[in-house]
Every structure is written in structure tokens, then in C-alpha cells.
């Protein structure tokens, strides 16, 4: 059986692509590099949009990247149910592309924040979090200057009511509404979060522990079983 293939997208200014690919391999999958200017998803089984500062984040995080040729394919594939995970800048791009509701704006404290963050996994109802238990507390690094999740009140209500909040901060680092660290779309296949699970997959490197590995093992298990 060949390993499940997870596409890792690189935009100009993407930074965590090598880390994301390493995490995919670490969990037993094959990481397939995808280039923003291409229009071919190379038949991957799932997609990872890593963090970084695409286009320098100059205008607004993710604002320019969402127009990349590849994003047209991403939107189409996500609509067809392909599992997609965006972390940090990837989350911002998914919001800008309207694959996820709401937006991410400047941290309340106005500083970039890099720290090992306590989180609670709220929903295991996604292909990326099925390996966790609901309510499980984990520590995964965050590192961002614009990670405050905001959305209209009815959007927030709908997210809460629909169980679409996937990860919540324990100790809000940036002023996100309802302590939201990550959400999913209604269908559940598209997930975005500010924390960086790819920086918590090995004891040797990154944040303390390996609490982030579950995102990668969840998706690979699902793909293998599919």
C-alpha cells in the first residue's frame, strides 16, 4: 500500500512548508510539494496550507495569496470534500478565500506572540482531529502577530451552535472572540487554526512534547482507512 499523499502548498513567503512536510512524513505520509502558481493538485489525498508571511503579509495576511492560481483548485477541491488544513497564514488564506468564515486581525496586545500555548480540542469531528478526544488539553506553539479571530455575532453563534469551533485557547493570547483558536467549515473537511501542530511533533525540536502530531496521524489514519 502506498502512503497517503498530503499536498503542502508553498506561496511566495510561505515559511513553515518544510516543517509541515516533515510532520507529514513523521506521521507516515508522503508530503507532496505544491507551488502556488501551478493549477495541478497532483491528485493529493489532503491539503496542508502552512504558515508564513505570504507576500510579506503586507496588505493583509493571506489577502494576495488567495488569488494564486492554485487557490482556484483548492476552493474547488474543498467544495468537493477534500480535507484541507490551514495553520496560521494558511488559516488566514482560507478565511480570505471564504472557505472559512470570519477573519484574523492584529493581536489585541499589538505584539507578535511566540509561545507554547495550552489549548482544548473542542471538536473531533474533522478528519484532522479525529485522533484526539473531545475536551483534550494539549500544548502547541503559537507564533503570530495577527491571530485575533473575529466574525459577526451571528457567525460566531452559528459556529458555536454547529460545533464548528475545533480548538480553543486556554488563556487567550490575542483577544480572539470566544477564545477561538481554530474552526471548521460546515462540512467539516476544511479546518483552520492559528497554532502550529507541525512544531509539536518531536520531543527533540519545537515546543514541548508531541501534542501536535495528532493532526497528522488523524488525517493519515482516515486516508488509509478510506
Amino acid at each position, binding site marked *: 500500500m502506498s502512503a497517503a499523499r498530503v499536498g503542502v502548498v508553498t506561496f511566495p513567503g510561505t515559511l513553515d512548508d518544510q516543517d509541515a512536510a516533515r510532520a507529514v512524513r513523521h506521521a507516515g505520509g508522503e508530503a507532496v510539494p505544491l507551488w502556488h502558481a501551478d493549477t495541478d493538485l497532483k491528485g493529493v489525498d489532503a491539503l496542508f496550507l502552512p504558515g508564513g508571511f505570504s507576500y510579506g503579509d503586507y496588505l*493583509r495576511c493571506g*489577502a494576495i495569496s488567495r488569488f494564486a492560481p492554485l487557490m482556484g483548485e483548492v476552493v474547488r477541491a474543498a467544495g468537493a470534500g477534500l480535507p484541507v488544513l490551514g495553520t496560521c497564514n494558511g488559516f488566514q488564506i482560507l478565511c480570505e478565500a471564504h472557505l472559512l468564515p470570519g477573519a484574523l486581525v492584529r493581536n489585541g496586545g499589538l505584539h507578535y506572540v511566540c509561545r507554547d500555548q495550552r489549548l482544548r480540542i473542542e471538536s473531533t469531528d474533522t478528519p484532522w482531529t479525529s485522533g484526539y478526544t473531545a475536551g483534550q488539553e494539549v500544548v502547541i506553539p503559537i507564533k503570530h502577530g495577527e491571530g485575533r479571530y473575529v466574525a459577526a455575532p451571528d457567525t460566531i453563534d452559528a459556529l458555536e451552535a454547529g460545533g464548528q469551533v475545533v480548538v480553543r485557547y486556554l488563556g487567550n493570547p490575542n483577544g480572539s472572540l470566544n477564545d477561538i483558536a481554530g474552526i471548521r467549515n460546515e462540512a467539516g473537511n476544511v479546518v483552520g487554526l492559528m497554532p502550529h501542530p507541525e512544531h509539536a511533533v518531536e520531543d527533540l525540536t519545537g515546543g514541548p512534547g508531541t501534542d501536535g502530531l495528532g493532526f497528522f496521524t488523524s488525517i493519515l489514519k482516515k486516508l488509509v482507512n478510506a
Partner: protein
Amino acid sequence: MARVIVDVMLKPEILDPQGQAIARALPRLGFSGVSAVRQGKRFEVEIDGPADEAALADVRNMAETLLANTVIEDFTVRVEG
């Protein structure tokens, strides 16, 4: 050649911590009488042709899709002058 200005501000209901931080700092710097500050963005777009209706429609489109995120921001477009 003309210059079109696009102003982008957070919607009033979205918290603006930058504006708030400035408003809080003002009294300390000896400025009184300011009740609120909001911080937004200003773009100066130089267009090749004249700023006619077609060009402005183009810039409006650009503002709508790129320069502003209408989920959280409002924008206005005007010709400088």
C-alpha cells in the same frame, strides 16, 4: 495619469486595539480632549489613464476584492483632489 485614494477602515463593531492603544497613550503625552481614535489604511493608487467612471469602477472592484476584506472592513474610493 491620476491618483485614486482608497481608504479602508475596520467596521465600527470590530475592536481596533491599535486605535485604542493610541487613545490610551494620548493623555499620558499631554493630549486631552480626544474621545476615540481609529486606525485604518490608506492606499494611493496611480492609474495610467484618466480617473473616469470605468477606471473608478475598476479601483472599486480592486478595493472590494483585494484592498479591503469586507468581512471586517469598509472602504471608500475617491479621486484625489
